[in-house]
């Protein structure tokens, strides 16, 4: 029971920490560390919530979560998985309910991840097929394919063997040569570091819990951090001013209007402006000590949860 209480406390604190973390200003000083923090918070929330349910449900075995799961499997086998018999013997009805809830949540999260992955692969394959038919190359624009559309857009299509950077004709119109190079460097950074894989668990979480505003907000926070990571990579090769100007020109071209209500996200400051000001007025990066402190806290959190899972408390 102690571990159930502690794990619930951790699950709640993860939510509180996530809410405060989103408001914090330091993540933009160390986007890579911040992305790791988001991943750890997500993992910790999942494992502590499921762990708390299991610790409560399997408490009668007195063997902790991991030991309890093994005991449950043995028990279920000897009772032919007959739930009411299990409920009649060692576990009460609430406990069986908690275990079932834990399994359902695990299944939901897992299937969300798989479904999202499959969907992403399907979208990408279709996109790649169409791109091959309608996009063209331009010797003036090395490292990118061109799409004849008046709206300004630049993006990357990730893939193991066939990743591509695509720029629209509208984008070529608004950007000068050096700005374009900065944009392409930014997109290549996404592809090189496989940022799409970082974002995938968060988008699958969004799929598993649609209409949960909090998850949508967190997803966008991670997406913004990933853009900052790519900005940081691009400014190693190109000047930050070029990149900032490119961002501004994209935004101001105004051809990519969203129908009202399609993206009803109200941030205090437009995300693009956050990126622009970060490029134009560089903030101090996190010091090595601060980074170490944050990362050790993350490791400690995950370690605690693992201990609580395995110890019979």
């Amino acid at each position: 029971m102690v571990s159930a209480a502690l794990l619930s406390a951790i699950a709640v604190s993860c939510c509180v920490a996530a809410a405060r973390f989103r408001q914090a200003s330091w993540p933009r000083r160390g986007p890579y560390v911040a992305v790791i923090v988001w991943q750890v918070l997500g993992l910790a929330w999942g494992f502590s919530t499921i762990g708390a349910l299991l610790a409560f449900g399997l408490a009668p075995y007195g063997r902790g979560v991991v030991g309890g799961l093994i005991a449950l499997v043995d028990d279920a086998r000897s009772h032919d998985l007959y739930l009411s018999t299990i409920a009649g013997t060692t576990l009460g009805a609430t406990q069986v309910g908690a275990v079932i809830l834990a399994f359902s949540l695990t299944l939901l999260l897992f299937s969300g991840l798989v479904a999202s992955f499959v969907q992403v692969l399907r979208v990408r394959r279709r996109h790649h097929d169409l791109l091959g038919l309608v996009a063209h190359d331009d010797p003036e624009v090395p490292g990118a394919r061109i799409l004849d559309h008046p709206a300004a857009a630049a993006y990357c299509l990730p893939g193991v063997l066939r990743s591509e950077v695509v720029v629209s004709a509208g984008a070529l119109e608004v950007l000068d040569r050096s700005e374009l190079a900065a944009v392409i460097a930014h997109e290549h950074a996404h592809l090189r570091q496989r940022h799409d894989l970082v974002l995938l668990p968060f988008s699958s979480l969004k799929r598993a819990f649609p209409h949960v505003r909090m998850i949508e907000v967190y997803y966008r926070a991670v997406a913004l951090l990933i853009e900052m990571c790519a900005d940081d990579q691009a400014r190693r090769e190109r000047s930050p001013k070029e990149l900032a100007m490119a961002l501004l020109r994209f935004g101001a071209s105004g051809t990519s209007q969203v129908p009202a209500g399609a993206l009803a996200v109200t941030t205090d400051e437009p995300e693009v402006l956050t990126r622009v000001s970060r490029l134009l007025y560089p903030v101090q990066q996190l010091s090595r000590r601060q980074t170490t402190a944050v990362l050790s806290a993350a490791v400690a959190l995950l370690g605690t949860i693992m201990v609580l899972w395995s110890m019979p408390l």
Partner: protein
Amino acid sequence: MNRLGDLERAVMDVLWQRNEPLTVRDVGRALADRDLAHTTVMTVLDRLAKKGVVARDREGRAWRYRPAASRENYVSELMIDALGETGDRDAALAAFVRSMNGNEAEALRRALEDTDEPRT
């Protein structure tokens, strides 16, 4: 670009140019300068049909092929994907800038004017 992809493009271009359903022979004739074997054209059209970008109808003994959508339609579809205007496609592509609402675009336009001034 690989040769097969190149051929698929060429075949689609033929289908888009002619405003009528074409047989394998018609397509081969339109690409006469490439000197393609009949079976090659058939394979390419078959692949395109499997990808869902061409539709085919039987007419007598021969299939007639036509594009499933116009080139402009496909370009728009790609752009809609890219600008993230469909909710659940977020992680598939990473756009340089997501599409933004009117207020955001306005704020950017102002910021751009501020930045442009010192340059001129």
